[in-house]
């Protein structure tokens, strides 16, 4: 056993005696869940910038009819890489990173159950992402040029067969996403094991913070949903390289099989992405309302119900396929059913706000933005669950508007809420409230300006994935509004970037518990030491820090 005498080192300061290489080695060789969490989130945010730039290029091209910013082939690559990046290289790493950082702290553990597996998972994701983007340089397209994947983020068969997708661009998509997927599975195993076996004394399952419950169900969904995608990708590789015909319709294969396998992953994936958003706001809303979360047991039950039902709704992505009316009716019913537990959550968050002493600080603003926008996305989701309506607007901009309200208005807003809320814990420095509010309002306006009009252009018949359109369709105004919204979003992201960089060096000292919060991560220092807690804490209620602050009125008397 080696005993190392190490000076205290935080995320934003480095040991002046250490060389740059040894500093980098600390990060590369680390198995500390907090450092890995930071690496996950940072990498996810960098990919967010790249994916955002791709979206901005597309909006520039579509701002008016007949624009010539990018050609059709490049446009195909842009929407493929944008979708793939945002789902696999932004949403997944950020949710895994935040869980990595916070789950051990919230359950009073020193690390995840398998620290080295955790590091392995991160590096698989990281290299998988790099491999995907290497396709811009390495994949041989039809004319021998470097070429990124261009088959859409759900890569429908038989478009992905070798006959239609020459060169290696689709192979890069398969391999890059496949490798990242293995990383996600590794982290899923880690989270489940950690939550089940490493909770501190007194923390029964029904005393876990809601964040931990949600990440637990999320990890289970990852374990169930990712393998079918990986299997389908391997089958596709067999088709492309070894002459198999799983998805080759001309050779007796089935394109519908790909859709079933992909969406069996793809729809739970939506919930894999949105459950962490629920987790963040379930922690933030009570703290900023100064009230305990309303209906904790029902929130847990709703989480489990969402996890379960989300595995049985995938066919609603395939309504326009021409399946039998009975199949469509069953999946229409199951899709509507999932609105019930989701609605329970929505009402419980509102009930938590109700009568509370609300503090409109930046994390709360982003959480409220999440509530309103996710609600709208959910409502259009229910509209799309109705088969005849889905037939009308399938593959139109209405659908694009809908899922951006869920994943951007829901997930991304909650991610920003989480960053403003937990970053003081991670860095020991506060983010600027003024800049944060600028960030929120610009993003709120920009987001709604971009994605609100898409519902209208979709209703007017504009199909998704077209690279230009004729001027006589009545779509120009709505597209122009959408593109103007992007300018607001870019400004918002610039405010955010400056705020983060500025706070790392000049931010106000946060202290251990800047929000007067109640969960265990706020009990330790900011940033926490490598071992998290000098002594493993013992808890008696769902709000252990409240109990310590108010020994005369502890929560365990009421739970």
């Amino acid at each position, binding site marked *: 056993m080696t*005993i*190392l005498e190490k000076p205290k080192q935080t995320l934003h300061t480095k040991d002046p005696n250490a060389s740059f290489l040894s500093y980098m*080695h600390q990060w590369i060789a680390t198995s500390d869940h907090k450092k890995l969490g930071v690496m996950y989130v940072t990498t996810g945010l960098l990919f967010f910038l790249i994916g955002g730039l791709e979206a901005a290029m597309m909006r520039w091209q579509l701002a008016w009819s007949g624009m010539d910013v990018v050609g059709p082939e490049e446009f195909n690559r842009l929407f493929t890489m944008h979708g793939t990046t945002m789902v696999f290289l932004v949403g997944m790493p950020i949710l895994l990173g935040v869980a990595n950082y916070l789950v051990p702290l919230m359950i009073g553990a020193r690390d995840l159950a398998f620290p080295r*597996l955790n590091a392995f998972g991160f590096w698989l994701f990281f290299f998988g992402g790099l491999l995907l983007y290497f396709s811009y340089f390495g994949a041989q397209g039809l004319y021998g040029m470097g070429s990124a994947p261009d088959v859409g983020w759900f890569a429908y068969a038989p478009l992905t067969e070798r006959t239609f997708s020459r060169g290696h661009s689709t192979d890069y998509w398969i*391999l890059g996403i496949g490798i990242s997927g293995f990383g996600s599975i590794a982290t899923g195993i880690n989270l489940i094991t950690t939550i089940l076996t490493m909770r501190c004394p007194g923390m029964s399952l029904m005393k876990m913070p809601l964040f931990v419950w949600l990440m637990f169900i999320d990890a289970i969904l990852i374990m169930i949903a990712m393998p079918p995608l990986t299997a389908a990708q391997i089958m596709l590789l067999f088709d492309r*390289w070894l002459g198999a015909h799983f998805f080759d319709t001309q050779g007796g294969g089935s394109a519908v099989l790909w859709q079933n396998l992909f969406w069996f992953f793809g729809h739970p994936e939506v919930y894999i992405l949105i459950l962490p958003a629920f987790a963040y706001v379930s922690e933030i809303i009570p703290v900023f309302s100064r009230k305990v979360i309303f209906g904790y047991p029902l929130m847990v039950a709703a989480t489990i119900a969402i996890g379960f039902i989300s595995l049985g709704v995938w066919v609603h992505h395939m309504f326009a396929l021409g399946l039998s009316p009975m199949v469509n009716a069953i999946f229409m019913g199951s899709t509507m059913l999932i609105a019930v537990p989701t609605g329970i959550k929505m009402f419980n968050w509102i009930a938590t706000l109700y*009568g509370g002493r609300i503090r409109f600080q930046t994390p709360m603003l982003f959480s409220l933005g999440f509530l309103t926008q996710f609600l709208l996305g959910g409502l259009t989701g229910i509209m799309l669950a109705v088969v005849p309506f889905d037939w009308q607007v399938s593959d139109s901009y209405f659908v694009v508007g809908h899922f951006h309200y869920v994943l951007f208005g829901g997930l991304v807003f909650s991610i920003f809420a989480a960053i403003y809320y937990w970053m003081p814990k991670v860095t020991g420095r506060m983010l600027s409230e003024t800049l944060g509010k600028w960030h929120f309002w610009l993003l709120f306006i920009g987001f709604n300006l971009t994605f609100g009009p898409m519902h209208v252009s979709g209703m007017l018949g504009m199909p998704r994935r077209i690279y230009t359109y004729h001027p006589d369709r009545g779509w120009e105004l709505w597209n122009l509004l959408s593109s103007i919204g992007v300018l607001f979003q870019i400004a918002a992201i610039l405010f955010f970037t400056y705020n983060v960089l500025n706070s790392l060096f000049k931010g106000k000292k946060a202290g*251990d518990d800047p929000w007067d919060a109640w969960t265990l991560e706020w009990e330790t*220092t900011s940033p926490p030491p490598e*071992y998290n807690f000098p002594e493993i804490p013992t808890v008696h209620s769902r709000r252990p820090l409240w109990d310590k602050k108010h020994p005369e009125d502890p929560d365990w008397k009421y739970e």
Partner: protein
Amino acid sequence: MTTDELHPRPSEPQGIELPAPSSSPFTCAFGVTLIAAGLVTQWIVTIIGAMIMLIGAIGWFKEVHPDDREETIPFEEGPAAITARNQKVLRLMQGTRHRQRVPAEIHPYSAGLWGGIIAGIVMAVVATIGSLIEHGSLWYACNLLSATILIGVESQTAEQLAQFNSTSLIVAITIQVVMSIFIGLIYGAVLPMIPRFQLLFAAAFVPLLWTGLTWATISVINPTLQANIDWLWFIGAQITFGLVAGWWIIHTEKIDTMQNWSYLERTGMESPGIPSQGGEES
């Protein structure tokens, strides 16, 4: 020799043991990626990747076998003492009227029913007067209303819409009756929950909201129909309905809800000393 030297006390722990840093996971993951990258570049990349992965895997194995390699992290300065910022804890008291709007009294369903029917008749009269003034016909508004269901009516010319059509009349009356009763019942249920300005809510807020929604969506749903609507008369008819239905309902006598009953009354128990519904002691 001191006592301490004779019986040395167990030393205080200097730190906490955690898994030592390791580059093996990084190496292993890099190797796996190169194996995959070789499939789409050169086979030699796959070979190199396999070797790197093997090095990483062996290194990883050595770190966990026979025991986990660990390092001791020395204690750092501990967290600050936990104190409450605000000792005062407020509780939501039961029985207070804290932002609650539970209607203790409501209008009977019949109020909404009759309010809706009467308002529907007056609204139809206003709409008919509008058609008479604007198009010189009693039937224009009636035909237009039927166009929400009957296919092809909306694309008729103004002259055709001004003509009498028995099918249109039957359909329009059916729509008007059903919708009037439906909206009247909703008004009857909702108005008691509005704390103030109930008539304003019924006669202005809801009609304007409904008109706005219709105006915003009908151009998408049925643009031909939209071209034939006289929006001023449309708003006038909506406000008339809201005014009449709201006035009728508000002026109907209210009845108690179960919110006023005791728990025993709500469960339907009967015993001496417990007043029955209506306040008479049984």
